[in-house]
């Protein structure tokens, strides 16, 4: 593909010489810069607010709001030591990791069965799982809330660990079916001839070859569960068991005077884990996003 891009770029240079440099700046670089500025500005604003002391935060007359004169760590300190933020972070991590592992486990088996065990109705099952992705949490949370209550899981992280796979499994299964499809079937046939069992084949041949797919599915699931909001809002009530997104909105926003410094510090620290995680696996992330759409 890089070859294709390169040859296209070459074509641009050869044929589009009328597109002079100033014109290119106006039509390509300037709009692109605007896009990047708008897309990133809220993050800059989040960060700069986090480090502002209150005196600067609410005084635009004497201080330039775009910059911080005396950066302070007071907001972050308050967040870490005067609220249950570390506990919220732990809960979120626990829920995200457990639901990701559970979803990947279920998805690998399901994708393998659908793609490789070749039974009648495999395509129908695949389509049904795909359709499950189209059922949004917004119409499920009320009945799920009654179920969670009846199962005695209300206010327990287990409720989230069990319900998050409903939107993770369809996506992961679909992604992994695509990956399994790209692994030559002959490899499995050879192993079958040699007397390997199906599960051995899955463990020793298919899974090692599908590692990039597993990583993509894992990253995606982790991010999605980290970001989930509506179930966590509906199923968890006690303060110390909340996940980060819910806790920041419901615990830090009190009364009419908002502590914007702490709120932004909370948002920044809540975004950082996913952002760092994401930065390590950008390529997997992009490929899983685009791969899922292309399927």
């Amino acid at each position, binding site marked *: 593909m890089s070859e294709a891009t390169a040859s296209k770029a070459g074509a641009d240079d050869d044929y589009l010489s009328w597109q002079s440099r100033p014109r290119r700046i106006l039509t390509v670089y300037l709009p692109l810069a605007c896009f990047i500025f708008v897309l990133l500005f809220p993050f800059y604003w989040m960060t700069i607010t986090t480090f502002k002391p209150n005196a600067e935060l609410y005084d635009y007359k004497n201080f330039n709001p775009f910059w911080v004169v005396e950066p302070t760590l007071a907001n972050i300190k308050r967040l870490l030591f005067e609220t249950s933020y570390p506990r919220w972070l732990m809960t979120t991590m626990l829920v995200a990791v457990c639901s990701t592992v559970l979803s990947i486990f279920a998805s690998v088996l399901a994708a393998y069965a659908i793609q490789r*065990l070749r039974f009648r109705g495999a395509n129908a099952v695949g389509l049904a799982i795909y359709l499950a992705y189209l059922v949004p949490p917004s*119409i499920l949370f009320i009945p799920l809330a009654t179920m969670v209550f009846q199962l005695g899981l209300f206010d327990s992280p287990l409720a989230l660990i069990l319900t998050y796979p409903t939107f993770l499994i369809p996506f992961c299964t679909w992604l992994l079916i695509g990956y399994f499809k790209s692994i030559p079937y002959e490899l499995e046939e050879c192993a079958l001839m040699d007397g390997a069992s199906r599960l051995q084949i899955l463990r020793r041949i298919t899974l090692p070859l599908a590692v990039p797919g597993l990583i993509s599915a894992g990253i995606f699931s982790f991010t999605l569960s980290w970001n989930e909001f509506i179930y966590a809002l509906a199923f968890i009530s006690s303060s110390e068991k909340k996940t980060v997104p819910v806790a920041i909105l419901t615990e830090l926003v009190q009364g009419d005077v908002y502590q914007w410094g702490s709120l932004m510090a909370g948002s920044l620290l809540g975004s950082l884990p996913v952002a760092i995680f994401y930065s390590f696996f950008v390529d997997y992330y992009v490929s899983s996003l685009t791969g899922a759409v292309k399927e």
Partner: protein
Amino acid sequence: MSGVTSAELPWNPRRAERGWLARLLDSKPFLIAICLFPAVGLLLTFLTYPLGLGIWLAFTDTHIGRGGVFVGFENFESLWYDRVFWSAVFYTVFYTAVATVLKFGLGLWLALLLNEKVPFKSLIRAIILMPWIVPTVLSAITFWWIYDAQFSIISYVLVDVLGWKDSYIDFLGTPWHARWSLIAANVWRGIPFVAISLLAGLQTISPSLYEAALLDGASPWQRFTKITFPLLLPILAVVLTFSVLFTFTDFQLVYAITRGGPINSTHLMATLAFQRGIPGGQLGEGAAIAVSMIPFLLFATLFSYFALARRKWQQGGSDE
């Protein structure tokens, strides 16, 4: 690949000594059942069953802590005369329509820009996805701060730096300002997904088509309408369906920024269902509002299905 030969495989086939478990695991129907069980079991329990339960709840008068009885269409009847409900339906449709048009317009533009030869392309692509991966609620809180009535940075720039306006804008204080502010935040969050997906579609278009068009003297606009757009259409249809579906059922952004205010003007159907169902305790009525979204979702799903089917047909019936 050639390295994996039968001689190197570490296992040792001992077919004769296998116990009943191994033989059971080699029987294909059993294996299929056991492989599908975790995924299908979880989905049936926590997705299909609640979906049915939700439809049932919509026809009962269930409250939190008290089981309900079947009341027929009573919930829907009371919603029919509920002005807040209709305002939520209106805003949901309006929000979805405007946000989708803007997201796709701007997203397509961004994808086309990224498809040009620009330096640091992969870095740009990586940072552009940031709004999409950061938890929506947290970026929504940032927008809340950006839209603050007294300390909005946008107002500051417009009034104190550029001098285009005389007074600070009350972004979230009046119904229409709040509605547009929420749409802007949704578009901001949605552009990366659209742009990156469409960019992937653009990169599959063969450059030789453009070269041929150039030799034939096609203008840039002609190249866009005759080559880029038609070849992008299948992927556009899929991304569009997902985007419409998730914008229509959006919850987080509105709940975080306005919670439906001012005077219930920015309620989406999902936030209204939540407000009536969970804090309000009227699970039956909340479920009825949620169920009212299903016809729209069915429409979007069917659209997606036929777009996919058409794509297969275009490719001569073969998968990628």
